[in-house]
């Protein structure tokens, strides 16, 4: 008898489970060893509490009501619950605070991602601002990926506010900004270019809006004239210097077109790749305003890996080796 399970979910049987456990155990040791204590939060949260963190995070695909009629949702990531946890459970604790997690998150299927339930393993560093915090998160991520066999991995690094700054400073009207950001998020460069051309901007503005988000590569890409986004690129240069000091600058690809879907990112944004698989293995970034929305004004940075995706990459790397 075959009984259905909801689309986007699946059963995990012992052979796969053993490998997933081993992967998580290795990561857990590394995270704990670096001072990132593991936390667990409820799968269900109040919708209005999550919404405080990010409008989009609250548009969860699964929602239900409790006995008092309050709306509950399955969390769509772990970053927002941890921001909530920091404000309520660590209201007076001396920063920095370091947390790790291995938990399921739930999202509506979108584009290439067909899973609605997926296992995230990640770290959050709260209370270390700017480059120092970003470098710590990236270094631990790079070390962890290498330790689980993904020696060829790369981490894409951009600035979540770069294109928004360009749009605002180059006098693109408010109603035009969101469509352009969406085109860039989906990397529909052909339409982005056509759309920018229609705005009738100066040649300089036009070139910046079309060419800058196509640029990615090593530290040399940070030499480009970024116009009004110069401060963002300057921040990435500082990040590069910090990564060089830790000896992991060659792990990183600077990507001036990198935009993450969630709105809470305020600075550096990350995406993890491995050449053996065609999709990103995880991502994250700096979210300096999020914890403040829950009542503790602390800068923060984090990164989450999709463990199923990392496991697939491990298997592919083994096959290719």
């Amino acid at each position, binding site marked *: 008898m075959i009984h259905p399970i909801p689309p986007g979910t699946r059963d995990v049987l012992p052979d796969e489970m053993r490998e997933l456990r081993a992967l998580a155990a290795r990561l857990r040791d590394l995270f704990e060893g670096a001072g990132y204590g593991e936390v667990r939060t409820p799968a269900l949260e109040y919708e209005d509490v999550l919404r405080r963190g990010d409008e989009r995070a609250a548009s969860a695909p699964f929602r239900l009501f409790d006995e008092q009629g309050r709306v509950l949702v399955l969390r769509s990531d772990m970053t927002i619950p941890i921001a909530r946890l920091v404000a309520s459970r660590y209201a007076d604790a001396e920063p920095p605070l370091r947390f790790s997690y291995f938990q399921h998150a739930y999202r509506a299927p*979108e584009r*290439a991602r067909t899973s609605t339930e997926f296992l995230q393993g990640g770290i959050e560093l709260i209370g270390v601002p700017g480059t120092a915090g970003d470098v710590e998160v990236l270094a631990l991520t790079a070390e962890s990926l290498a330790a689980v066999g993904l020696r060829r991995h*790369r981490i894409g690094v951009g600035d979540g506010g770069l294109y928004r700054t360009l749009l605002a400073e180059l006098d693109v009207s408010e109603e035009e900004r969101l469509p352009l950001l969406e085109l860039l998020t989906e*990397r529909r460069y*052909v339409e982005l270019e056509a759309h920018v051309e229609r705005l009738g901007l100066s040649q300089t503005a036009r070139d910046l809006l079309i060419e800058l988000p196509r640029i990615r590569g090593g530290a040399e890409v940070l030499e480009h004239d970024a116009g009004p986004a110069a401060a963002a690129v300057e921040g990435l240069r500082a990040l590069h210097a910090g990564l060089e000091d830790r000896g992991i600058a060659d792990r990183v690809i600077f990507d001036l077109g990198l935009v993450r879907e969630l709105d809470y990112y305020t600075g550096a944004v990350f995406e993890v*790749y*491995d050449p053996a698989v065609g999709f990103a293995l995880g991502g994250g970034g700096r979210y300096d305003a999020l914890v403040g929305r829950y009542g503790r004004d602390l800068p923060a940075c984090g990164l989450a890996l999709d463990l199923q995706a990392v496991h697939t990459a491990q298997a592919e790397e083994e096959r290719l080796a």
Partner: protein
Amino acid sequence: MSERLTIAVPRGNLFSETLDLLDRLGIDTSEVRSNDRKLLFEDAGIVTMRPSDVPTYVEHGAADLGIVGKDVLTEQSDRDVYELVDLGYGTCRMVVAAREGDDSLVESQRRLGSARIATKYPRTAASYFAETGRHADIVEVKGSVELAPLTGMVDAIVDLSDTGTTLRENHLVEVEELFVSTARLIANPVAHKLKADAIDDLVARVRERS
């Protein structure tokens, strides 16, 4: 070139112009031209497939780049691929066409509240009618879509039209244009970063030579 690229090439209307473009880029397509059964050409870095499969192979990273019509890309807009360049060839138009001298498209909307539309592009058609504030019952067909209105199954079709000959031969007339489709160069998101130099180099040569 620093890294090798694999390109997904559609065996369809865009096939010969795509091979011409690749020749101009210095990619040897003679083996592809002389062998219409073989699918994988490792020396040239080319994989050939039916056009609607190109976004699939590129999304999964089996090919780093692909060449595909905007019609296919619009229909599969949920694919996680990067659209890099409008290659400018393979121009055709996505249109709504109805029976000549027949107003059933308008009449069905007016009296029945919805039009019946046959198409091979169900998502494109559904979103077009939704965006223009109309209801449509989409009937997906696989073969000659022109047959559907002639048999009275539907009021109109949404289909690609090149010269309009097929429409005319079947006594159909174009009533609306959805968009103009041309060939596009698409990239896998991971390859776009990990093979950035090779891809940018190819894109620059495409822009020079097309």
